[in-house]
C-alpha cells in the first residue's frame, strides 16, 4: 500500500482542489482529509458517515475545590500558566502534562479525559474516506492527523485499496509533520508569489529533513512567470521535479460552487479552455501514479 501526501506550506494554494480531482481520477484509493482543523474536502466529496468515534487528545487537569488548600504549589510548577488565581484550570492553557497531580500535597488534582474532536469512516462516490473534526481551539492536531491516517490504513486493508491520498494541512508544524511522516511521496502545491516561494522553500526543507521523495506542482503559474522560473530553478537545484504547471482559471471556483471536482465539472462543460485545464490535471495525476509505482514498497 502506498501513501501520497499533498501539502503546500502556504495555505490557499489549491491543495484540496487538486486532491479532490485526484480522488476522482484514482482507481483504487482511500481519501484521507488530514487538514483536521479547517477541513474542506467533505464539501466536495459529501461523505456519508458510516462510523463515528470520539477523539481524545491529551487529558486536562481538574482541581477539586473541596480538597484544595490553595498552597500555590501547582501554580508554581505549571510551566504553561494554566492555573489561575482562583485555582481553576484554563483548558486552553493546560497541556495535560500532569505535573500538578504529582506536586499537589493534598491529592486534589486529577486528570480527566477530554474529547478533543471526532473522527469518521465514510463512503463517497469515489470510495472510502477517513476524516475528522478537531474541536475549536484544541491542542494535539498532529495526534489527530495520525489517528486519521491509521484509520485510513484500516479502511484500505478492509476494502483492498492500494493507495491512500492524504490532503495535508498548511504550515510546517506538528500537523504537517504528522501528515508527511512515513508517506511514500509528497506532492507540494505551490504558487508563484513571494509568499508561495518562501513557504515552499521552508516546507521542502522540512521534507528533506524527513527524507521523503517529493515532487512539486505550480498552481496559477501565469500570475507571475518570473517567480515560476524561480521555483523551477530552485527545485532543479534540489533535484526535485516540477511535475505540472497549472494556469490561473476561474473553473476552480466554478467547480467548487457546484460542489464538484474539477474532473466532474468539465464533463458538463463545453468550454475548450476548461477541458484543457482538466487534461493538464489528468497528466499530473498520470505522472504521480507513475512515480508511485516506481517506488518500492
Amino acid at each position, binding site marked *: 500500500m502506498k501513501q501520497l501526501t499533498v501539502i503546500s506550506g502556504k495555505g490557499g494554494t489549491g491543495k484540496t482542489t487538486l486532491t479532490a480531482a485526484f480522488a476522482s481520477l484514482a482507481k483504487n484509493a482511500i481519501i484521507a482529509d488530514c487538514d483536521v482543523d479547517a477541513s474542506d474536502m467533505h464539501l466536495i466529496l459529501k461523505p456519508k458517515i458510516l462510523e463515528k468515534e470520539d477523539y481524545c487528545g491529551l487529558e486536562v487537569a481538574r482541581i477539586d475545590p473541596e480538597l484544595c488548600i490553595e498552597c500555590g504549589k501547582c501554580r508554581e510548577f505549571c510551566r504553561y500558566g494554566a492555573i489561575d488565581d482562583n485555582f481553576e484550570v484554563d483548558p486552553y492553557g493546560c497541556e*495535560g502534562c500532569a505535573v500538578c497531580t504529582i506536586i499537589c500535597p493534598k491529592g486534589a488534582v486529577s486528570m480527566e479525559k477530554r474529547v478533543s474532536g471526532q473522527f469518521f469512516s465514510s463512503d463517497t462516490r469515489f470510495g472510502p474516506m477517513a476524516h475528522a473534526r478537531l474541536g*475549536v*481551539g484544541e491542542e494535539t492536531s498532529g495526534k489527530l492527523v495520525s489517528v486519521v491516517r491509521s484509520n485510513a490504513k484500516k479502511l484500505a486493508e478492509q476494502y483492498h485499496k492500494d493507495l491512500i491520498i492524504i490532503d495535508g494541512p498548511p504550515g*510546517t508544524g506538528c500537523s504537517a509533520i504528522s501528515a508527511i511522516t512515513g508517506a511514500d511521496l509528497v506532492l507540494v502545491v505551490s504558487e508563484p508569489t*513571494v509568499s508561495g516561494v518562501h513557504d515552499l522553500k521552508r516546507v521542502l526543507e522540512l521534507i528533506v*529533513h524527513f527524507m521523503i521523495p517529493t515532487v512539486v506542482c505550480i498552481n496559477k503559474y501565469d500570475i507571475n512567470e518570473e517567480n515560476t522560473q524561480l521555483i523551477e530553478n530552485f527545485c532543479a537545484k534540489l533535484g526535485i521535479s516540477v511535475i505540472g504547471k497549472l494556469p490561473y482559471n476561474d473553473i476552480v*471556483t466554478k467547480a467548487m*460552487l457546484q460542489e464538484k471536482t474539477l474532473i466532474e465539472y468539465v464533463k458538463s462543460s463545453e468550454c475548450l479552455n476548461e477541458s484543457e485545464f482538466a487534461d493538464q490535471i489528468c497528466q499530473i495525476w498520470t505522472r504521480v501514479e507513475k512515480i508511485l509505482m516506481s517506488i518500492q514498497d
Partner: protein
Amino acid sequence: MKIAIASGKGGTGKTTVSLNLALSLSDVQLFDCDVEEPNCNLFLGFDLEKVEDVVCPVPVINQEKCSICRQCSDFCRYNALAALPDRVLFFPSLCHGCGGCAVLCSEKAIQESQRSLGVIEKAKGESSPEFYRGLLNIGETMTSSVIKTLKKYIDDRKTAILDAPPGTACPVIASIGDVDYCVLVTESTPFGFHDLRLAVDVVRSLKVPFGVIINRWGLGDSRVEEYCKAEGIPILLKIPNDLKIAELYSRGIPFVREMPEWNEKFLGMFEAIKLQLADTEEART
C-alpha cells in the same frame, strides 16, 4: 489596542490585510504570529535582528545515577522518555518541557538544559511599522511557545496588529487569545465560507469582538454577506477580486503603496473597529 487578523482557511489574505492596515496607521506595531510560515517581512524588506531565542527546558539524564526505575518514562504524557533494560532514552522532539520527570526522579539523576525551538526577530532600528516576528525551527512542533514568547513584545501604549496563523487549533488560540478585537478575513466561496464559520466559533468561544473582511470580493457568490447579515456580524471591508492587487501581492508589494486611496479605507476600518468596541463597552455597562 491589540487587533488580530485571522481566518480559518489559509490563503484568504490575512497577511495582505495585516500589512496594509499596519502601513495605514501610525504609532503601530506589527507582529507576524504565523511562525511556521512567516511572510510579512517579504513585503516589508526590513533588516532583522534576533532579540531572543525561544527555548524549551529538556531533561538531561545522568546515566550513572539512573536506576532505571521507569518512574519518568511511565509519567511522561508525551512519550518523550523510554526505559530500555540498560538505560533511559530521550526523544527531544516529543518533549513539551513540563519538568515532571525531574520532579519525580528519586535518584536526582535528571537535570534540565535547554533546546532551541525558534527565534524572535525585530526590524533593526526605528521602523514603521515597528515589526517583530517569530520563526519556528524546521522539524519543530512547539508552535504555540514561539507565539507566546513573541507576544511579550507587545507595547500596550501602541496599536498592535497580529497576523495570525491559519486554522482553528492551538496556534490560533495562542495568537488571538487575549486580543481586543479580531478581524476575520474570508472569501465568498464554499471553502472560505465553511472555514469562516469555524473561525467564528473560535472567536465566539474566546469572547473576542470581531468583524469580517471579504477578500477577492466578486469571486464566488453572496453566501458570506447573507450569513453576516443574518448573524449581525459587521462587514468591515470588501477587497475586490482585482488583478492588480493579486499581481502586486505576487511581487511582494503591499497594495496601499501603489493604490494610496486604500489608506483611507483601512483607516476608516480602524475607526469603525474602535466605534464597535466603544458600543460593546457601552452595552456592557
